[in-house]
């Protein structure tokens, strides 16, 4: 699967796109845990424990325009965008 990061996450990592292989179907939560494990520099900005699902003020994950929930299953061929919250005017 492909993970695309927008600012500020991309700036932390120094890259805008990462590829990851999923052996089995995983939840979004476990994908993010794996991401942070592989790239510790993202720990402060991407931490599954900090995603507030009700209000999403930390970050959101979007799959083909659809906002994802943490326990949702992710497929190996998916592209996920990690973006700041959709809040504001």
């Amino acid at each position, binding site marked *: 699967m492909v993970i695309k990061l*927008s*600012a*500020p996450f991309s700036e932390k990592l120094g890259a805008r796109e990462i590829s990851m292989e999923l052996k089995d179907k995983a939840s979004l939560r476990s994908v993010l845990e794996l991401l942070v494990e592989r790239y510790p520099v993202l720990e402060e900005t991407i931490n599954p424990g900090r995603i*507030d699902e*009700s*209000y*999403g*003020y930390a970050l*959101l994950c*979007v799959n*083909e*325009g*659809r*906002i994802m929930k943490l326990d949702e299953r992710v497929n190996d061929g998916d592209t996920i*965008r990690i*973006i*700041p*919250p*959709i*809040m*504001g*005017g």
Partner: protein
Amino acid sequence: MSVLGGYCGKILRVDLEKKEIREETLPEELLRKYLGGSGIGARLLYDMTDEKTDPLGPGNPLIYMTGPFAGTPVPTSGRHQIIAKSPLTGIYGEGDVGGTWGAGLKRCGFDGIVIEGQSGGPVYILIEEGKASLEDAGFIWGKDTYETDRLIKERHGEAVSVSCIGPSGEKLVKLSSIMHDGKDARAVGRTGLGAVMGSKKLKAVVVSGSRTVKVADENGLKQSIKDIAPGIVKNTNAIKQHGTAAGVIGTEAIGDFPLKNWSGATWDKIENVSGQRMTETILTGRYFCESCIIGCGREVEVKEGPFVTGGAGPEYETIGTLGGMCLVDNLEAIAHGSELCNRYGIDTISTGSAIAFAMELYEKGLIGIDDTGGIELTWGNAEAMVEMIHRIGRKEGIGELLGNGVREAAARIGGRAVEYAIHVKGLEFPAHDPRAYNSLALGYATSNRGACHLQGASYFFEKTATMPELGIPEPKDRHRLDDQGEFQKNTQNIMCLMDSLKLCKFLLYGGVRTTHMREWLKYVVGWDIGFEELMEIGDRVFNLKRMYNVKCGISRKDDTLPPRILSQPRREGGAKGNLPHLGRMLNEYYTARGWDDDGIPKQETLEKLRLTW
């Protein structure tokens, strides 16, 4: 019923022609039926005008109205509403604004002001500690809004709050706004009310007072606010950090951000114009309206280069229209353009939309370099975007045409221009796409002031907001086909309530519900208003505005969207392929509203709401 606090119970009536000012009591029954703000404003406008009223004539009143909580610690309660018949659309017009002015009027001892007639020469209204007078505006006529604020404060002291128009309103540009608080630039942007003020030769309304606003139960109110405030602050943190533009990147990701006059789909430059980029580069501070704990306002500075600016920073809507709609990815240019719009006193949404419309006409060869007065109106041309703001603001050249709004501009240009005029009922689209949120299709089509995302704000409840008491326990699917009619009715009624109570809609992101609104009515005013009565008030206010528009000739034929939105889906990105099925949603909505098939409120609906034609 008895009012124990909140309201002053009176307004000022100003007749500019006769040069008379008098006080008028607001009957308690009126307060209970309409609450304040938009509700009372709509009632007054309905009673004072009709379909024949010229929006720029002496018969169109300019109505300022606060809510019951202004001047109290209720979060965000310092807002006020301005209402008049719109010169841009020819129907119901209004705008909502924060800043300091609303609470300032309350502290003078008045809930609102109704301004009638037209002055012979430029004047401003001065209200100090309950005394009102008409003053000569010769020293500020022709000045921009920042300069007007500065000069008035030089004369009357720094503690006054100023509501004013800029040169555009004086010239009756139909995109004119009414601005507040000088460089902090809080705007009543939409529907051209600045031109109404200009037609009256009224430059400003200045308030200054120290009266304490009474509340019914101080301890109850304190506890209620203490309970909800931490949640509001926590859950709106993104807005405080990065402003209303916090969601720019996200809205592009889901196919909502406007691009290239609504013909674009995705934009790889989006981060250049984001709230996050603003924070890293040009942000110098954050602004809080009176009694606000959210702090969405931005203060920015650009010290050098072609786009120098300082003061209020651009909002999401401004970035959407001066930026995305024109494909301008230069944040400094957008901030500079925003300041120009504020100074001239023109609506950034309609102005950006008009420029984008003109860019598309230029691309398609429907207008040329002779028409633009030498400006190369190409997509992404930041200098051209800025120069067009000057032309519109000054009513010069092609700016004179575009300053009438895209509907009239397209009609005057003729031919295929009408295909590129994206509006509903004459009001240009705000920066959210009905193809990204199906409910916005219905919302824009039926909003009482034309295309508006806030008259229903249904998309809030498809992002993060919830309202369990209205059957919205969690955010809804934005591309669903069902469950749209009743949902839109309920969200519109809630927004009418918030516009009448004069509360900021960002409170909804913060978890505020109707229970909190009822608590505040109890602790501030002393009223025990049940949920059913509260929702009935919202329903009444919405229907009253619809009745006004029906008298102005509005019906189902006008509850529609431009062909570009109904039949041309985005080709890629987060809203790829989606088109809203408006006809089906509209039928459901009319049924939910108790209107007939032509969108006219039925007699039994009006009787239930205690409304009569």
